[in-house]
């Protein structure tokens, strides 16, 4: 991805971008909305739903079937969308499979491996067959979506499930990983950016470990695709998953990335229309990727909307988005560490760990649910709970946390509103 020659994002530029996100003008009671929950789902610029609307107004038809003009137009826009999203993440067009979200993408991989393990896919599916003696490895900081599918795949195939533990300051323990990833390892699944901690894991050492033992790598890119310049081919992972709704796109669409030769050899997970070459009453043969994984009518308007979202992000420039969020994240980290009774979770503010604009914290003596409720009364929207990462929270010694997550449309004023509201929490609840 080209480095933008535009000046860095700042408050003036972010304020200009905000005009594209009408929902950010919402009033919460007497307060102005301060949306710091983009880690859960991002807000969407007008151009995204306008693209969907335009598709319905001018090109709606079923794709990859039918010879009429609209069917051809719809297919073109659908495939153009795939090309746009592929380009955005540094993938080839045939390497992007549409899914409902990242969760479905990760399950797709797991079930395709399952089907291979049951004998599907012929000789070329051999690399995907798992059984007793094989090991699947994830990490202690995964979102449940990149954890449970692997636990279940292990249970279905007789493989063992293992995980890379964390260091005391909640980084991946690469020394331990070097032992855990061994000749039995067949899959190594890990997150690029922790959805709770906002810390960036360098894929390089893990990819190298997996390659050395011939294991497949699966990257959860849900929190990196929206926030960092991403080039999946350069990262050299075998598979990756991301969700559209976290990167300015519509809900209901996400994508699986897989190296083309792997996707063509991997047996399908969902079966039905649009994914076959020939069907008899006895059996069926399947199209190459990506169609072999896209059974049934697809999320066409959503794909078009997601293409508009990545177009918007590219126009702003992902390097600028990254730099601005880093700045907002640092302001949150520093500001929160200065508030008495507030404890940051994960690596310390000065640890030098790469981060996005996501910061989890605890307010001593006040449950996160109450913190979130109080912040809401000031218009500040954050996430409270375990953020679908229960094992990580257990490791951090808490059952739940409060997480503020920024995006390109946030300003330093948003961060300051968060800091002011957090400073008032303990007073309101009478905690000293």
């Amino acid at each position, binding site marked *: 991805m080209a480095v933008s020659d535009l000046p860095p994002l700042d408050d003036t530029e972010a304020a200009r971008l905000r005009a594209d996100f009408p929902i950010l003008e919402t009033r919460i*009671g007497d307060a102005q909305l301060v949306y710091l929950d983009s880690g859960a789902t991002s807000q969407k610029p007008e151009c995204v739903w306008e693209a969907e609307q335009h598709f319905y107004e001018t090109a709606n038809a079923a794709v990859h079937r039918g010879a009429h003009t609209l069917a051809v137009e719809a297919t073109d826009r659908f495939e153009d969308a795939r090309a746009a999203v592929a380009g955005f993440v540094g993938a080839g067009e045939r390497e992007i499979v549409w899914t409902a979200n990242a969760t479905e993408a990760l399950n797709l991989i797991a079930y395709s491996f399952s089907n291979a393990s049951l004998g599907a896919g012929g000789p070329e599916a051999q690399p995907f067959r798992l059984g007793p003696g094989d090991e699947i490895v994830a990490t202690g900081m995964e979102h449940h979506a990149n954890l449970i599918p692997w636990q279940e795949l292990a249970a279905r195939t007789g493989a063992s499930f293992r995980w890379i533990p964390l260091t005391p300051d909640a980084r991946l323990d690469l020394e331990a990983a070097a032992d855990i990833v061994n000749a039995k390892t067949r899959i190594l699944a890990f997150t690029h950016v922790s959805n709770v901690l906002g810390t960036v894991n360098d894929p390089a050492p893990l990819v190298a470990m997996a390659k050395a033992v011939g294991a497949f790598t699966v990257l959860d890119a849900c929190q990196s695709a929206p926030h960092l310049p991403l080039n999946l081919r350069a990262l050299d992972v075998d598979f990756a998953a991301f969700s559209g709704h976290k990167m300015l796109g519509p809900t209901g669409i996400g994508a699986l990335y897989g190296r083309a030769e792997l996707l063509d050899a991997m047996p399908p997970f969902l079966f039905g229309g649009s994914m076959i070459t020939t069907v008899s009453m006895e059996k069926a043969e399947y199209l190459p990727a990506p169609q072999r994984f896209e059974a049934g009518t697809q999320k066409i308007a959503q794909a078009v909307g997601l293409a508009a979202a990545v177009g918007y992000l590219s126009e702003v420039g992902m390097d600028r988005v990254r730099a601005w969020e880093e700045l907002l994240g640092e302001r949150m980290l520093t500001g929160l560490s200065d508030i008495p009774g507030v404890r940051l979770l994960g690596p310390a503010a000065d640890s030098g760990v790469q981060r996005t604009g996501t910061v989890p914290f605890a307010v001593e003596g*006040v*449950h*996160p*649910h*109450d913190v979130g*409720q*109080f912040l809401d*009364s000031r218009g500040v929207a954050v996430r*409270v*709970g*375990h953020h679908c990462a229960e094992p990580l929270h257990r490791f951090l010694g808490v*059952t*739940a946390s409060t997480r503020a997550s920024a995006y390109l449309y946030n300003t330093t004023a948003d961060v300051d509103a968060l800091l002011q509201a957090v400073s008032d929490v303990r007073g*309101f*609840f*009478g905690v000293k």
Partner: protein
Amino acid sequence: MNPLEQLYQEIILDHSKRRVGAASLEGEPGAGEGQSHQHNPLCGDDITLRARVSADGVIESLAWQGDGCSISMASASVLAEGLRGHAVSEFAEANETFHELMRSRGKLAADEELEERLGDAAAFAGVSKFPARVKCALLSWEAAKDAIARASA
């Protein structure tokens, strides 16, 4: 009072700190006792509640251990304080009233009649305006209902 102050009434904040009936529950429930564990996966509120019910249907004690937000902890505390010495049938009536209150979306006010029927639990009227918090308030009531039924079985 603004909605936030209606939600976090003094009674609620006070009970969330006092935690009447909070105990470390060890061993299995004995004769005349019943125990229930309830968990809210959305926010992690967790409670184990043990009830002792006499042969003639009087709630002799409620003890609980738990972890959660102020609403869930205060709700357990209010129950433990308020139910002691009351008949199981009275709990059933209060439970129905409390559920009705929680479903009211702020339409039922904490008036004298409600206070008569619910005691301190009427202070949770403000919770009903916050649908995301209703489950927090109900968690200990579910636990109490289940534990009392087990104790009476």
